């Protein structure tokens, strides 16, 4: 089948998609966007988190056909052309990246959280990221990164 979606602001059309393919497979293998990761492919780990019409979803659980005519934002589309998203910078600065396989999903989920709730409490951060597994960091520095991003984004808001 043919699928037409908007991905990271760009209209994309792909042919010969088998009906059983997930949005994750189409992004990674047919659109050349392997940033969303294939860690569990069963909705447990959140490493494939993308925004679908503004809502975070596990791309592995979305049938590719369900993305027809809709808008997808992946980790590759998070940064501005000239600057990383503050969450991305904070993950690097806080040491929240080790192997990095969970990172794309966490960055997308954390950016979504801070858009909804600019100054989240710790329990709120934990709940928002509860669907994202990391095996390297023990999560402490990931929490640090989200707090750091929230602080910096609030600071930028005030400065404006």
């Amino acid at each position, binding site marked *: 089948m043919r699928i037409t979606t908007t991905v990271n602001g760009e209209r994309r059309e792909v042919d010969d998609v*088998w009906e*059983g*393919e997930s949005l994750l497979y189409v992004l*990674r*293998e047919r659109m*050349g*966007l*392997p*940033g*969303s*990761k*294939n*860690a*569990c*492919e*069963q909705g*447990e*780990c959140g*490493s494939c988190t993308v925004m679908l019409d503004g809502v975070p979803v596990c791309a592995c659980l979305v049938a590719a056909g369900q993305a027809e005519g809709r808008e997808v934002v*992946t*980790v*590759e589309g*998070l*940064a501005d052309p000239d600057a*990383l998203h503050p969450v*991305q*910078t904070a*993950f*690097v*600065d806080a*040491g929240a*990246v*080790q*192997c*990095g*396989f*969970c*990172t*794309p999903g966490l*960055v997308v989920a954390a950016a979504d959280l801070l858009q909804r709730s600019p100054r989240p409490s710790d*329990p709120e951060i934990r*709940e928002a990221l509860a669907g994202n*597994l*990391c*095996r*390297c*960091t*023990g*999560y*402490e*520095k990931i929490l640090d990164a989200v707090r750091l991003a929230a602080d910096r984004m609030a600071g930028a808001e005030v400065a404006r």
Partner: protein
Amino acid sequence: MSAQAPSTTTIGTGRIGDSPARPDGILKVTGEFAYASDLWMEDMIWGVTLRSPHPHARIRSVDIGPALATPGVYAVLLADDVPGRNAFGLEHDDQPVLADGVVRYQGEPVALVAADHPEIARQAAKRVVVDYEPLPRVTDGRRALDPDAPTVHPDGNLVRHLKIRKGDPEVTAPVVVELDFEVGMQDQAFLGPESGLAVPAEDGGVDLYVATQWLHVDQRQICQALGMPLEKVRLSLSGVGGAFGGREDLSMHVHACLLALHTGKPVKMVYNREESFFGHVHRHPAYLHYEYGADEDGRLVYGRANIVFDGGAYASSTAAVVGNGGTMGLGPYRFPNVHVDCFGVYTNNPPCGAMRGFGCVQAAFAHEAMMDELADRIGVDRLAIRQLNGMTEGDQNITGQVIDSAAPVAELLRIVHDLPLPPAATGELDLRSLPGGVSNTTHGESVVRGIGYAVTYKNVGFSEGFDDYSTARVRLETVAGEPLVTVHTAAAEVGQGLVTIEQQICRTELGVDRVVVHPKDTSVGSGGSTSASRQTYVTGGAVKAACEAVRRLVLERAAVSVGQAADSLRLEGGKVVSLGGEVVAGLADVLGDQPVEETVEWRHRPTQPVDPETGQGNAHVQYAFSAHRAVVDVDTELGLVKVVALDTAQDVGRALNPAAVVGQIHGGSAQGMGLALM
């Protein structure tokens, strides 16, 4: 094609003792870092594995006809298609690449399929008809050495028996504690599944891009299976999504190469999560029987232990795990009299091998519970009994090795004890912070708080006489008018941050800010394994030694041109300076268009095999000590627990990158907590 992990470069400071940003950090947060499962080539096809549904069975026949007839399928391969020796393994090559006549665990690879779409390959694999005759199985490690146990391998079910004998075998003590322990299997569950891309080469060989912990040991095993010389099988490290020991053994390596060589096409293999659990070794389940004798003050008199590690169907690194579990089996304490028997056995369970802690973790559960029990029996403080018996520098461990560097057991315990405790739960309780959490199983009634302490120690580097070395090639040259260092090792970066450390060492040794980390591959000598906490020390040592060799040559060259003695010069800030810091020449000028490059192998001090009858000997290079304090709320009616705080103090020596060290400790503690709770 995007098969090679990008080389990474960082400009700026970041020397030894600093915590500079990872050179791959930005690539990882933007999704641009190329992991093994991200690799793609225009005409690549997909490989999948058919695995045994039986833990032990004879294969009567296999019919690949229906699978091969599936449209889109390029190849279906069986044991007979393995051109070299159908066997691999880290210590003993006892594991077939594809099962030959018998399967010994559920999940053992039997056949391979390559097709132009992964789903077609999976469907075709289901059409391979295998006629199995189930055989008697042994699935309990404690039964594996019984005379009537089914044998997993022709030579029997014993992988290794380590005996440790010290002091008086008949000694008695006024206080005796005897307990049994059992530790279940644990999985590394690294997030990036086993993946790789094998590309057939014009010379008849193959190039493999793969996520692994040790390129050269993979290369040796792949070559044996393919029947090819080393130069025909070239490996490059692609991005690795975590490892924790689970990538020490081969997974899809040979399979992808076989399919690529058979079809003449690039073959990509990516396990899904279920297959990943079948596709790598696990932490050994262990059965431990311990008996301690002590005097009435709590001073240890003797320790006796019988430990069985269930190695599963193939040896992997079981013998070395037994080495660790036995030699460090009684923990970081002084024992005048010791009698330890530690066994590694074959069973029809999934193979077990390396996982973080490598044999010490199972033993730590037992030896620390023993110390608690002993303290309670005698009526002394649990912390105090550990401090009373804890090793200090100069003590002997149970193999008679003198601990000739810091052994701060009592001090680490004091540090964690003195850390502030989390506040007691008072007032309005947040359900999310109670055992059971949002499941709303308690409102605080029957919840009590406990505090536990534990210490342990673990070897750093490979042990028992292993020739444990690493190789580094360092090149210093002028690029665009500025000095540039390129550091090339085959040591795998799996997330721990070795690439950052390599840059820090080069900057420090050569006084040059711009350092490029060359992609990791087999075109340079072995870096040894990324395991046993050894890379910062051993590959770090090699990088430092290579830098020193480069520096010597550069300073000799500078000495000639400026007319001063080489030993009166050093490198700093991209310049050649005098010992007093006065600039003598620009480094770029000294180098001109003639790069300086040196390749060095570096070894740590040698270790020895232990005596086969007494287990005595200097088995290990050095040790890392740690202490933990856990504060845990327990619902005494339901048995649900909530870890309120887990604090640790660890002797890490000199932290070359403090932030990275903390990151490792966080992650390691979380994995240990996972074993304790799940």
